[in-house]
């Protein structure tokens, strides 16, 4: 473990420069360049807001703010997009970097850290865009928003833990990534991002509470829209699950590393 931390420290420059290059390369040939970094998430939020709020005319029960639904939606999207981006990139992390892993020796732990860094920055930009939208519709966030400092790392840990386990298995069984792409779509609709959990029939409620993403997403909605603290019991449970997943991921990663390059 200390060995791994030492390796991360030694390669810190590589990790930072990789994250930076990831963005540089993405916007290198566009004339607006870095402005896209803000425009893209802004457009994403605007589309959801427009389509789901104006067109469907949804209103949130229990609030009189006609934009409450937009806020509800964007809060959920903020959590979900971090989760889904990190998870889906982790799924193919070793396969995509196969050539590099076959030719160059470097601490492999760098790869997920680079992904996490890049996803975190994307999410930060989305957060800025989201706060911009809030400002536009006259919603102010209270001190409960500081909970994001806990919620973002938690989402990160959950996605990284699950993603690395599946990403490792995907090296040996390539169907894992294909299956997960379908599962993720289903998972999105099983998580109350675009709908309220209250519309879920009583007999399916247990399915909701077994979904860690439900607790994460609803915590985001609580702290950003309702100005209330998250449900501590379930959040704590989610944290335990995330740490457990991370531990399993690291163990799996170590056991498999001798054979991983053999099959890449």
């Amino acid at each position, binding site marked *: 473990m200390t060995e791994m931390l030492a390796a991360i420290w030694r390669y810190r*420059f590589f990790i930072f420069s*990789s994250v930076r*290059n990831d963005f540089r390369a993405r916007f290198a040939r566009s004339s607006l360049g870095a402005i896209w970094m803000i425009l893209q998430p802004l457009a994403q939020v605007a589309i959801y807001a427009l389509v789901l709020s104006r067109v469907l005319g949804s209103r949130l029960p229990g609030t009189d703010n006609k934009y409450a639904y937009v806020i509800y939606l964007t809060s959920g999207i903020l959590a979900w997009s971090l989760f889904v981006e990190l998870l889906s990139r982790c799924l193919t992390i070793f396969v995509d970097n196969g050539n590099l892993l*076959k030719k160059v020796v470097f601490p492999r732990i760098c790869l997920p850290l680079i992904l996490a860094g890049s996803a975190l920055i994307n999410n930060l930009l989305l957060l800025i865009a989201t706060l911009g939208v809030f400002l536009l519709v006259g919603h102010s966030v209270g001190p409960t928003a500081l909970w994001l400092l806990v919620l973002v790392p938690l989402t990160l840990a959950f996605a990284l833990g699950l993603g690395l386990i599946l990403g490792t*298995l995907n090296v040996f069984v390539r169907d894992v990534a294909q299956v997960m792409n379908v599962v993720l779509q289903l998972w999105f609709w099983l998580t109350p991002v675009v709908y309220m959990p209250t519309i879920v029939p009583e007999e399916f409620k247990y399915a909701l509470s077994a979904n860690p993403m439900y607790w994460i997403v609803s915590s985001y909605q609580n702290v950003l829209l309702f100005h209330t603290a998250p449900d501590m019991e379930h959040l704590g449970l989610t944290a335990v699950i995330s740490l457990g997943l991370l531990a399993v991921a690291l163990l799996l990663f170590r056991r498999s590393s001798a054979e991983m390059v053999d099959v890449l």
Partner: protein
Amino acid sequence: MNANVLVLEGVGKSFREYPSQILRFATWAGISVRNVQEHWVLRNISFRLGRGEAVGIVGQNGAGKSTLLKLITGTLRQTTGSLTVNGRISAILELGMGFNPDLTGRQNVMHTAGLMGFSQADIERAIPDIEAFAEIGEYFDEPVRTYSSGMQMRVAFSVATAFRPEVLIVDEALSVGDAYFQHKSMGRIREFRRQGTTLLIVSHDRTAIQALCDRAILLDKGEMRMDGDPHTVMDYYNAMIAERENTAISSVKLESGKVQTTSGTGEAVVEKVGIYNAAGEPVEFINVGEPAELRIQVKAHTDIPRLVLGYLIKDRLGQDVFGTNTHHTGQALEQVRAGQVINYSIRFSTNMGAGAYSVSTALVSTDTHLVNNYEWRDLALVFTVMNVDRAYFVGSNWMPPSIAIDQS
């Protein structure tokens, strides 16, 4: 202090094939699994590399060369044996592989050096040298997609060798690029070696191996066939390429300490080889510019539809000086009968520099020994050219000049 920078002992590598991937996962949990197919690509490789040694690794495709290199660099892990490395290993393999086409040369250099594990401060110190060595001018700050492949190679080589490693692995990649940069990069490799870097060179190019290496290792079907002097190993390798059924390779140590390698199917053999002077006397020493005659006696053991004799004169470094065969001169023999004895007389003037030369002979059916190799004999004859009465000159070629000097 340990003088060995790299020690391999009984290193083997097998790729495991499991009937089902579930069983592979089970082995990670410590459960032993039967029915595992083991496919061995390397077995029992043992050698040591000392500081400043230059060792060539030769072998046909599929002999296990790249697997061995991956084990040494550490991207693959050996299945058996032990592998110890003292110091940093740098590999010039697939140059420029990690380059991002949309980033500039400078950004890619920073990134690649970071991947090699160097700190920002180290890299920033090295960047001016890298830029200067690559010599691509303003392109260094242009996106790599605008580069020619030669320019990309220059940058990649410069960054790969920006920091002197303990072991440098050089793949065939070196043959890329323009002649100027090839010279420059060879210069840097030689300089590293002087400073104590051990070189590990993988190439099919006999000249490169013999020019750079003081030792060669021959791999065949995942096993070490030979480890020794590059001449001997390259001769053996050459013979091995021609190896077929019924072919025997033999190595005989000559009195001079060199090893004569003979291979072939044996339908025809060289019985006698000799070099003679203009008076027809057998000699060992020939004066520069003197007419000489190479006499080769061949005996056929079976009926042979077509017989070609080839010969090759090599200098003491094993570099080809001159070689041809009777296919190219239009003198191939048809329908040679069993028991027939053929005498070849090859006359030439010794337009060669002073030094020792060797003659290899080949008895084949076409212009190459790859179709029918009746007999291939390296070091069939050794003779020495001496400069007795000519003006002093260096080189392996005698090109008598006429020098005019105008002094006004």
